[in-house]
């Protein structure tokens, strides 16, 4: 059985496909070496020492041949001559192609896309009669806040992208679902952020909404 194992191709010995990159050859050799090295518990008593050493020598030969591009090419050619390997299965190193410095494609993250959400125009808020009317009120309900938002033509998603307040919480505020609201400390700072983004007076909104909450409960 030993003979058949040692007779395998260098790729088989290291458990590698023909197009394995050098990093895979490194990893594979390291693991195989761990398996058969002198004080390996897994190999203990399975082989006579001479057999184990023969395996180690063969592994090293495989590693040395495949890790060097020149000797690997020679070995691949010999396999191709024997008809064991096809030209298209060979490993081709794509990482070293020439590339103009200014053409490196940057990966666009969604943060860049984020900045495209428009800021709210200050004048639109102060000149809008409906919004002014709502803000006159002593208490602000979730409904009122929603009305301000829809008047400005904003979606919850846009507010989330700018303020990072979870959409679920925004919904809970607008729908007055008291059980789903966060603790008061967080709620206040969320409201503040929300108001700041809509360019309305933050203190008024926080006070009026908290008043509405207390009055209801």
């Amino acid at each position, binding site marked *: 059985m030993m*003979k058949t194992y040692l007779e395998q191709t260098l790729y088989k010995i290291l458990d590698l496909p023909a197009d394995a990159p050098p990093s895979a050859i490194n990893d594979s050799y390291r693991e195989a070496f*761990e398996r058969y090295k002198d004080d390996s*518990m*897994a190999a203990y008593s399975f082989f006579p020492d001479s057999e184990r050493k023969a395996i180690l020598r063969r592994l090293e030969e495989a590693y040395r041949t495949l890790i060097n591009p020149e000797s690997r090419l020679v070995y691949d050619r010999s396999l191709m001559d024997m008809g064991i390997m096809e030209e298209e299965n060979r490993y081709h190193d794509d990482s070293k192609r020439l590339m103009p410095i200014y053409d490196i494609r940057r990966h666009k993250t969604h943060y860049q896309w984020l900045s495209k959400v428009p800021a709210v125009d200050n004048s639109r808020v102060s000149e809008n009669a409906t919004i002014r009317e709502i803000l006159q009120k002593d208490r602000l309900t979730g409904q009122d806040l929603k009305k301000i938002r829809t008047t400005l033509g904003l979606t919850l998603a846009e507010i989330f992208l700018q303020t990072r307040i979870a959409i679920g919480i925004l919904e809970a505020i607008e729908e007055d679902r008291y059980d789903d609201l966060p603790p008061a400390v967080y709620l206040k700072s969320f409201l503040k952020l929300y108001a700041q983004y809509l360019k309305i007076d933050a203190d008024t909104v926080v006070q009026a909404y908290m008043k509405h909450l207390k009055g209801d409960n």
Partner: protein
Amino acid sequence: MPQIWPIGGGKGGTGKSFITGSLGILLAKGGYQTLLIDLDLGAANLHTTIGAPDPGKSLSDFVNKKVASLAETIVPTPTPNLYMISGAMNNLDIANLAHEQKTKIRREIVKLPYDYILLDLGAGTSFNTIDFFMVSNSGIFITTPEPTSTENIYRLIRSVYFRKIRQVLNVHHFKTLAKEAEELNSKATVTNPDLLLAMIKKLDPEKGEMLEQELNKLEFGLLMNQHRKQDNPNIGKFICQIIEKHLALKIQFFGNIAFDDNVHLAVCNKRPLLDMSPYSRTAIDLRECFKKLLLMKDKSSEIPDVVDQVL
């Protein structure tokens, strides 16, 4: 048809009974009708690991013909769905079963109406152990990360595997074929299974195919017990890779089971670890391995049709 899992280990004290008991409890809690059979004759203590009291009945009653069928020696355990045949007995002669007695036991085992039957086998490669591995296509091997233990687990796996090959060869009148193969290439004996297979295939492709199919049915698994934090966690994986590469035998590694003083404590209290410290590292590892074991393909329910004819 029950699924039969023979559980063995090369060396004594690796935790065969403990793991058999724990897997039995996990199966029973999963709703499977489960039977544990203590076949570690002469050193039986499976009942202690599952917290069962002295059963009163045992396998020896069947062997000594006190009862007519093996089913009559089954006793319930404190865990619902879990039953047991104890091997605890005081007869001196019973530790070495005669061949006919083993055949009789094997024939009865496969007829018992359970979902899972776990066989707790004795340490080493005695005939008692190897013969009971022949009941099923699956086998679970327990080892520990110590050279003494890996040495013996290789010995055991080889013995079981070679016995299987012999069994297949005998049953299908392969014997002459195997002899021819050996004449063709002196190394092609049962100790070199992949070479033997190649030679037989050359001589008689049809029968070679058959032998290969039979051997492919085997579902072996390895558990690394008593794994301490400082031990190399890859030893079990490496053992399986070496067996696969050099014996042409597929064996799955089911995982490491942590060494834990809680196990000692549980055994001393005669209570199952899974009940006493269900969140200990060992208990968590056991449940992880158990999940993988359940996925083991259903091949083990296929009882080899050669049970009566083994050697």
